[in-house]
């Protein structure tokens, strides 16, 4: 029997006060995610239970009990307080998946500051716009990533501290740099927890927008109720489970379900801080007897590509619940996992803005491969007519996925951008920007984005951001960025580029531009293909018509071209 039991009954009867009760949260009282994920578990008598098993490169392994993560997060929180970091200050974590990242999030939350995790592969430009927008006061990083921060330090007057967690003393510290070593710091047994309330800010995650700069999604401590409940009912986490979330905490899945969900449930979780290899992943599952595995379609399709021989070499019988997030999981992957693991991957759907799983498949519920599943209890999800913004009364119509505001982990605003935040609501609904239909049995079926945002390997990339970076290359005159289909990543970035006079298209220039974007923005944003062209399709008013280029890439109808400049 799964944790959720009968979905239909749960959906009818559930109220978020049930989650509050399980977490002993009294409305109006103190609510702190950092404390709830560590001290609370210790107070329940589980302090000696393993909280984290971490594996790094070359087989390095570290283990932490709940007492350990309580003390370590106290120690980090006390260190930050000692620097003068105050409640609601933004503290960025710019690190690989090292233990300090996970423990740092808890430490920051315990002192009431706002944790701002950023993907460690971001280039200096991506990093700058996010730190600048958030007016971040401190960045915690590793020595290998510090040079990217140093490069932009002069442009960030609000950034007071660059905290390096693995400084080896070989190079002298520079302006604003300080060292923190979790291993050498005196452990702090007791820390005064900042009395955060339900609506106190907790996390700031950045997500790409169709136009303009990335948006800082502000979450609050009340999100805990939703992350706790969804981890329990969707990921089916139980006391004796061993859980593995493959996501990086630089993205929302990595914090909601790589930190908050599992640790608020007091489970043992594993983290693997190295690159992808099918052999290494299966070995990791076998070695740690992982029972609950939360991953992404890109990884699943890569595992499918690696074949079944490698699976046969490992005992994967510990697996009980498999789930996937980031982009729609293709039906073939669901059928494949059922055949090779004896369990179907449960496709789950949520966004940085929603903070927790919204529409999903559940353990024990009939799975329709390729379907998103059904709304989580306590949430109302509909498909709206794009003309009227009213829910379609009949099944099967393709429209806009919308959610009724009010679930605990809903974003509270976009940082310094309330205007864009308010535009996310129409007719009383939160608009996800995704399109779907609902069948007669209430299952949602994903159709696609309602904008130009590219979902590559489960990560959103803004064409605008890539185009803006491209024209900073000395050879590029104009650019247009669209998605193109990809068998592993669903979509990848493709750039159409016109060159300035004096530059000639060549294979070397193609590579140079690719690397330029990779370093400036991130590997995700790097065009996987660049097409040099003499001109880009434009409207008569001069606006580049991305949709024409995209339609060609996807083999779709080009549609109305009446406004095309050279038609």
């Amino acid at each position, binding site marked *: 029997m799964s944790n959720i039991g009968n979905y239909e009954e749960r959906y009818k009867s559930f109220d978020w006060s049930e989650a509050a009760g399980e977490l002993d949260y009294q409305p109006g009282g103190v609510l702190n995610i950092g404390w709830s994920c560590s001290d609370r578990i210790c107070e329940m008598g589980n302090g000696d239970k393993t909280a984290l098993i971490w594996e790094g490169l070359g087989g390095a392994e570290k283990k932490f009990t709940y007492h350990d993560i309580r003390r370590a997060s106290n120690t980090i929180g006390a260190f930050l307080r000692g620097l003068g970091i105050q409640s609601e200050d933004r503290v960025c974590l710019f690190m690989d998946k090292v233990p300090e990242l996970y423990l740092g999030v808890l430490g920051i939350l315990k002192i009431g500051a706002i944790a701002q995790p950023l993907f460690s592969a971001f280039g200096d430009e991506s990093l700058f716009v996010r730190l600048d927008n958030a007016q971040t006061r401190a960045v915690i990083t590793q020595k290998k990533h510090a040079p990217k921060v140093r490069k932009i330090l002069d442009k960030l007057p609000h950034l007071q501290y660059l905290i390096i967690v693995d400084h080896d003393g070989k190079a002298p510290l520079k302006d604003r740099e300080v060292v923190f070593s979790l291993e050498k710091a005196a452990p702090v047994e007791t820390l005064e927890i900042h009395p955060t309330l339900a609506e106190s800010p907790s996390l700031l995650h950045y997500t790409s927008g169709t136009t303009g700069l990335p948006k800082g999604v502000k979450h609050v401590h009340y999100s805990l109720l939703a992350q706790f409940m969804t981890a329990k009912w969707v990921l089916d986490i139980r006391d004796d489970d061993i859980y593995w979330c493959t996501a990086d905490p630089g993205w929302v899945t990595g914090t909601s379900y790589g930190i908050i969900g599992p640790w608020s449930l007091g489970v043992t979780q594993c983290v693997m801080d190295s690159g992808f*290899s099918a052999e290494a992943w299966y070995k990791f599952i076998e070695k740690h007897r992982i029972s609950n595995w939360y991953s992404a379609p890109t990884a699943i399709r*890569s595992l499918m590509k690696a074949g079944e021989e490698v699976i046969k070499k490992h005992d994967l019988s510990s697996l009980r619940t498999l789930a996937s997030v980031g982009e729609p999981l293709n039906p073939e992957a669901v059928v494949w996992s059922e055949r090779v693991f004896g369990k179907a991957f449960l496709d789950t759907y949520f966004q940085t803005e929603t903070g927790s799983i919204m529409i999903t498949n559940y353990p024990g519920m009939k799975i329709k491969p390729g379907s998103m599943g059904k709304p989580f209890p306590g949430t109302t999800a509909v498909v709206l007519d794009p003309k009227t913004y009213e829910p379609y009364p009949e099944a099967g119509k393709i429209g806009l996925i919308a959610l009724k505001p009010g679930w605990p982990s809903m974003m509270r605003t976009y940082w310094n951008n309330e205007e864009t935040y308010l535009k996310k609501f129409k007719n009383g609904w939160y608009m996800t920007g995704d399109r779907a239909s609902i069948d007669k049995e209430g299952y949602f079926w994903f159709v696609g984005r309602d904008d130009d945002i590219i979902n590559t390997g489960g990560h959103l990339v803004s064409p605008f951001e890539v185009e803006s970076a491209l024209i900073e290359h000395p050879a590029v005159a104009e650019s247009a960025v669209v998605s193109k289909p990809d068998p592993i990543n669903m979509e990848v970035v493709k750039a159409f580029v016109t060159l300035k006079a004096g530059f000639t298209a060549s294979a*070397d220039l193609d590579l140079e531009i690719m690397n330029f974007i990779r370093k400036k923005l991130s590997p995700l944003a790097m065009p996987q293909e660049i097409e040099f062209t003499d001109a880009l399709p434009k409207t008569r008013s001069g606006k580049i018509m991305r949709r024409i280029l995209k339609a060609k890439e996807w083999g779709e109808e080009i549609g109305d071209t009446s406004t095309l400049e050279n038609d």
Partner: protein
Amino acid sequence: MADEMKDIVLKYVTAEYLEDGADPIGFDTPLISGGIVDSFSMVSLKRFLENKYKISIPDDQATPEAFDSVDKIADLVRAFTKA
């Protein structure tokens, strides 16, 4: 020739994908499974090899396993330069 190729690839990977101040890598250092080169960046590494050695590596042979170290990359490139 083989060692020269490995030196060139090692130098390129170090310059392009390693963060400043990161520990140096060797011919057998795991690149993909070691997290030094991610799957997205593999495309630019493939493009470099194709440009440099005037070869075309089919996508189905440009696997994470085949790109997992400078040694393996050199084997792959040799297979195509001989062909």
